């Protein structure tokens, strides 16, 4: 087991939340995780979107945002905590950022850096790939 490389291409909150939960527990258990954020996957990381909780999503996302009796930590908090506990890196797809005219400053402070497709393939070489 060399860990997982996760391609996050969806903007739906329930999907990114599932990625965050699995990644966080894996990394905290010393299972290496590389998350590659690309395409629509960037939107939930935008500072404005996070501040306003302006997420897209389906039934589970709505339940999560409306939950009052349970405290579901947002993926941003989970990933931040996980990075302090184990091997978890988050890469930003350079091509998508150029395409959308985005800078690193537009996003919450979770990214380790930008990466192109070759860089991602190198990082994923010895890992199981999950596409979300």
């Amino acid at each position, binding site marked *: 087991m060399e860990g997982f490389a996760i391609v996050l291409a969806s903007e739906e909150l329930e999907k990114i939340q599932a990625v965050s939960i699995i990644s966080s527990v894996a990394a905290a258990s010393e299972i290496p995780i590389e998350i590659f954020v690309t395409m629509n996957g960037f939107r939930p990381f935008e500072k404005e979107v996070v501040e306003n909780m302006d997420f897209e999503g389906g039934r589970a996302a709505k339940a999560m945002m409306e939950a009052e009796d*349970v405290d579901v930590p947002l993926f941003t908090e*989970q990933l931040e905590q*996980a990075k302090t506990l184990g091997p978890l890196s988050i890469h930003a797809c350079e091509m998508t950022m150029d395409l959308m005219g985005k800078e690193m400053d537009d996003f919450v402070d979770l990214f380790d850096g930008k990466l192109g497709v070759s860089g991602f393939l190198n990082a994923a070489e010895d890992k199981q790939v999950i596409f979300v």
Partner: protein
Amino acid sequence: MSEDYNPDKVIDSREAACPGPLMDLIGQVKSAKSGEVLELKTTDEGSKNDVPDWLDKAGHELLEVVDQGDYWSIYVEKS
């Protein structure tokens, strides 16, 4: 009985949903010394079932899961 364990650390993760309690536990287990006993308090039934699976894999000992009525106490000994 819960009193018998006399935990070195108590982690109160009540009201937190998956994977909050597990993440809290992992963080505290990492900084604990070998042989120390930790008590994790959780109201999340999923965590009650999932924490033992993590302990199994991570190699720490599950001492007991105690039903406290409105929450569970999971007693763990760091290996």
